[in-house]
């Protein structure tokens, strides 16, 4: 007849991408006459912001500001093939393809500039602000805009590039399962604090502190969006979500949002995130996929915290109040049996 607190920990890793058919994504990059750059993809943005982060990746590689990069995607007529946005593969695969394409485009851009400045392209630097200048002589420069105009109307060159990400498909050995499912893994450690009401079985998740290792946080605010949103979904999974509350029986299957329970806006835990980075050698600027992992560690962290709080294990999801109460009653009656 009390509210009891406890805390629990979970530590996990998560693979980027898929071991299926090469996990391919292609990208094309080209310059407009005035030195803006179009990235063509067919990757779908689900709200994770792939269009935005890909623009940053392209801009960094080209050596121009992000606002000069436009991403055109999700059209099968204009974008080269992408396997799709899932498996935390989007940023990693599309990012790598875009880097390759942008490198090719950058090489042409520098050759055009080299022609204009009458130097070798190896003696040129982009300043990241829209200009290209001779190394050590910042006054001798041309704008990216002028370079693009020259390419189109004077030199007849296409400032463009192609890129493709592909890994050879790995076939698991039938006897011992030897396989290569992924080339890079992100990591997480979550510590959850909960309060369990022993009278109702309800669980309030008070706080979550999560440390995520993501390779490289390409855009920290966007990384935070994913990690906070995913943490919420993990807690929601742990305590509330199911379409079949009496699984494996299909009775009372949830038909709509009246019946499908989720963590509500009034029940949010204090969610804190810290990020560390161990760049993946094959990630775009070292980035690893993180869109899925963030929902995983909170679930067992909450389950372990419940045990710490009230001494019962609920080893089935969702950990509903009913299951907690049954476990508490069982614990009480077995204790009584020993005492009595």
């Amino acid at each position, binding site marked *: 007849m009390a509210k009891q607190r406890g805390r629990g*920990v*979970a*530590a996990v890793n998560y*693979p980027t991408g898929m*071991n*299926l058919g090469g996990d391919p994504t292609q990208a094309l990059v080209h310059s407009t006459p005035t030195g803006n750059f179009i990235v063509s993809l067919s990757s*779908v*943005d*689900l*709200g994770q912001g792939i*269009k935005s982060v890909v623009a940053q*990746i392209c*801009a960094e590689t080209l050596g121009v*500001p*992000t606002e000069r990069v436009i991403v055109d995607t999700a*059209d*099968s007529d204009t*974008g080269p093939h*992408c396997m799709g*946005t*899932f498996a935390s593969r989007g940023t990693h695969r599309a990012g790598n393809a875009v880097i390759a394409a942008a490198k090719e485009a950058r090489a042409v851009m520098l050759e055009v500039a080299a022609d204009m400045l009458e130097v070798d392209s190896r003696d040129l630097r982009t300043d*990241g602000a829209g200009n290209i200048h001779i190394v050590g002589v910042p006054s001798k420069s041309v704008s990216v805009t002028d370079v693009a105009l020259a390419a189109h109307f004077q030199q007849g060159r296409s400032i463009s590039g192609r890129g493709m990400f592909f890994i050879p498909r790995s076939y*698991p050995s039938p006897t*011992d*399962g*030897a*396989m290569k*499912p*992924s080339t890079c893994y992100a*990591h997480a*450690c*979550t510590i959850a604090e909960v309060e369990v009401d022993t009278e109702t079985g309800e669980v309030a998740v008070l706080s979550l*502190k*999560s*440390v995520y290792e993501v390779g490289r*946080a*390409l*855009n*920290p605010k966007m990384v935070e969006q994913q990690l906070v949103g995913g943490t919420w*979904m993990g807690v929601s*999974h742990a305590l509330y979500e199911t*379409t*079949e509350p009496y699984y494996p029986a299909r009775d009372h299957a949830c*038909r709509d*949002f009246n019946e*499908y329970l989720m963590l509500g806006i009034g029940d949010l835990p204090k969610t804190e995130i810290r*990020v*560390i980075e161990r*760049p993946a050698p094959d990630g775009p600027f*070292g980035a690893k996929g993180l869109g*899925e*992992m963030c*929902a*995983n560690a909170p679930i*067992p962290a909450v389950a*372990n915290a419940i045990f710490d709080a009230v001494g019962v*294990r609920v080893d*089935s*999801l*969702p950990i509903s109040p009913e299951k907690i109460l049954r476990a508490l009653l069982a614990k009480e009656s077995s204790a009584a049996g020993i005492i009595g």
Partner: protein
Amino acid sequence: MEISKSYFADERHGDFKEIGQSRQRSDTAGHVRGITPFYADRRFPGLLHLRMVRSPHHHARILRIDTTAAERHPGVKRVITAKDVPHNVYTVLSLINIGPEDEPVLAFDKVRWLGEPVAAVVADSERSAHEAAASVRVDYEELPAVFDVEDALKPGAPLVNEYHGQNYYRYDSGASRKVRLGDVEAGFQKADHILEERYDSSPIEHAPTETTGCIAVPDQNNRLTCYTGTQAIFFTLDNASIILDVPGQRLHFVGGTAGGGFGGKVDCTVEPITLLAAMLTGRPVAFIYNRYEEMQISSARAAERIYIKDGLTKDGRIVARRVRCYVDSGAYSRHSPYGAQKAAAHFPGPYTIPNVEIDCYCVYTNRTPSSAMRGFGVTIADFALEVQMDKLARLVAMDPLEFRFINAYRDGDMKAHRQLTEGAALIECMQEASAWANWPVDSRYLKMSSRERKG
């Protein structure tokens, strides 16, 4: 959100201008103005509406489908059944040679789950489509159904999926995707403690705020354009091309932003039938899931049942781990054969264990086919693994965090699927969490590193 730069500092090179900056997203201005185009934010004159007639039974033979009343219903342009679908069996992964094909676009001899599509009604208003769909008469002969993964594998269980011939996906390794390292029985013999536990989950929905759907439009040059919320443009296009027996160049797929995906919009279930409806009527057709369909018809995360048996030494080392994982694929495969394999690659978790035996089964039951969802093959495994770690720690009276340090994987360690660990960082995440959350651990753990094995 803080980025702790002290870890792996010598591995982090690069002086970037754009990378590492929190540049404003390109789409948020459109979101706050409400002008981001989602697939349903398009209007086409003469738009028709598709509603699906679905099985009311978990498992039944189809004796007769009578669409005459529906065909005569005012406003109805076309009623589509299995015979109208050029290639009526589709498997989402057949593009990359993962078979056998095992799911009809529209059922013809049998229904294997409650809600399985049987006939598509295409009408000039949503109301006509609904009313006409209700007037389609299907005569069924109900069959016994099986809902429990282990029951489905018992001899004598109702056969759910004739395309496979048994209630599990047959891998080249047999009834399960197998991973074997060392000798678990020998490991159990050496252990001081044995812990055998079972973990369960139930299906979980993606429940995006935007439901699954698409609009197929006959377009210029004898092509069809499909505006869709799919997460995989070409995947869906190529599957549609096979199902419709239409060359790929006639199909044009346009996505936009998907209003939430989470893996729930990769099954290519709405586009082929909607395109077919557009082809047969010559009109634009919309097929948009209502919330019930999104909840019960669209695939969910597979329920899983996981058995873990561990052998533990008294100084806290896991010397052997046996995992048996049953993935409830529902009535058809979709992506689950891959998901169960992904789980096999994920077990036994980010820990170095010398003797490991993993069997992951992809099992068919009479329920909504499950499919990819955020954390596919991993989320439920992590629930089981990390609760198990907590139990093991307490078994030997160790702090749960310290216990994980002892077993955590490091660079160079052999994983169960015979890859060497690279780029590990579990230890560092736990070190940071320990300090930050004030969960103290012995100083020797704070001196550990993922980059080398000591202690």
